[in-house]
């Protein structure tokens, strides 16, 4: 088995593009996922049951079915609804809605962690539902759920690799096509593993640091 690192340096521009796209997909998917998750959690907790029940089903389906199948439904099934999405758009939307299901559970737990007495007090002072969420619940719960949010965000970065299956040109896809044209599978795939591994380690370490910083704001034994 020969090992020729020149295959990587020769295709450096394409690899770099793939890395950038992977990070863009990750960032976009996370932002959509957080927005979807927050809205779903609010819908589940603060509206009537006709809104809450379908949202609960949505969360269960996102968490109970494979991400790959969800991608296929959006990408190949989209045209059925007149949604002719590009692989990239379908992939980002898929990642966002998948992540949204998990983020919703985290936000829901967060909302429930704020003592009900505070909400009653806020309502007595005449704050609206939106004001209570914005000024009372969110600031307190974000500190509590930050580790879980960070953890899920890190997990989503690994899921971006699955987008290669619907032909999104992210890092895994780029490396795979270099591998299959040069037959240098060992060089390309091991490089790919090391890149993801290093990336995950860095992101995880950053998340830990952030948790530690924010941890100062939690008041232990307060409630």
């Amino acid at each position, binding site marked *: 088995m020969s090992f020729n690192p020149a295959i990587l340096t020769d295709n450096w521009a394409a690899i770099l593009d793939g890395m950038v796209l992977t990070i863009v997909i990750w960032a976009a998917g996370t932002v959509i996922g957080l927005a979807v998750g927050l809205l779903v959690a609010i819908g589940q907790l603060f509206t009537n049951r006709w809104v809450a029940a379908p949202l609960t089903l949505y969360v269960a389906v996102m968490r109970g*079915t494979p991400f*790959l199948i969800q991608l296929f439904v959006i990408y190949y099934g989209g045209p*059925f609804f007149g949604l002719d999405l590009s692989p990239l758009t379908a992939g980002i939307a898929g990642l966002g809605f998948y992540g949204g299901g998990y983020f919703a559970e985290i936000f829901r737990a967060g909302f429930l962690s704020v003592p009900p007495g505070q909400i009653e007090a806020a309502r007595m002072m005449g704050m609206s539902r939106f004001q209570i969420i914005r000024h009372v619940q969110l600031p307190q719960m974000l500190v509590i759920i930050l580790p879980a949010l960070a953890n899920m965000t890190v997990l989503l970065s690994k899921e971006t*690799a699955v987008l290669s299956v619907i032909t999104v040109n992210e890092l895994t896809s780029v490396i*795979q096509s270099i*591998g299959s044209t040069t037959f240098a599978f060992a060089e390309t*795939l091991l490089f790919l593993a090391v890149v993801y*591994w290093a990336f995950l380690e860095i992101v995880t370490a950053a998340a830990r640091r952030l948790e530690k910083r924010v941890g100062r704001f939690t008041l232990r034994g307060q409630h």
Partner: protein
Amino acid sequence: MFDTAIIIKSLPMLLGASVWTVIYSLTSVAIGFCIGTLICAMGLSRSGVGRAVAAFYVSFFRGVPLLVQLLISYYCLPLIGLNVPSSVAAVGTLALCTGAYLAEILRGGFLGIPPGLIEAARMVGLSRAQILTRIEVPLAVRLTLPALVNETTMMVKASSLISVVGVLELTRLAQNIATSTFQPLEIYLTAGAIYFVINGAITFLASLLERSFRVEKAA
């Protein structure tokens, strides 16, 4: 128009393939459990080398996307002269990956066992291996059952990725049917529903198991 006829027609085939999904994912969890126990025991041991190996293992298999691990085993094993069937390579990779997650889960369980129990077991003359298999593992499983079940359902979902390396299971068959009938929406929704039911069944069975554990504890 949404075609229910194609769903009814392909359902028997999809259900047949879902049996493979269940077999592949449960086999990998079973093997992964043994790997996880071993890695966990190494991580908690006094040996510095053991702890380093365990930390490296967990960090690697949790840090690299499963799809990339599957691609490595599929393309690179033949390069080092290992020509195993793709299904074996895929299940092996799933097992290695879930082993890392299970090791982390079991770690919490092992640490939750009162040290007095281990000391008592040592006093009555049980060997280290006996203590591990008869005392520590059963107790750790009981303490971490919800997380273990969650990991099992994660593996059922993750097994869909082995379709990418050409192993025939639910997702792969759904792909084949979808491309030959040009009705991807119906087929993929059906496949998704089957995964949903499998995971629902696993969660339900686990809740029964959990209840039986609780009764024993009360007695």
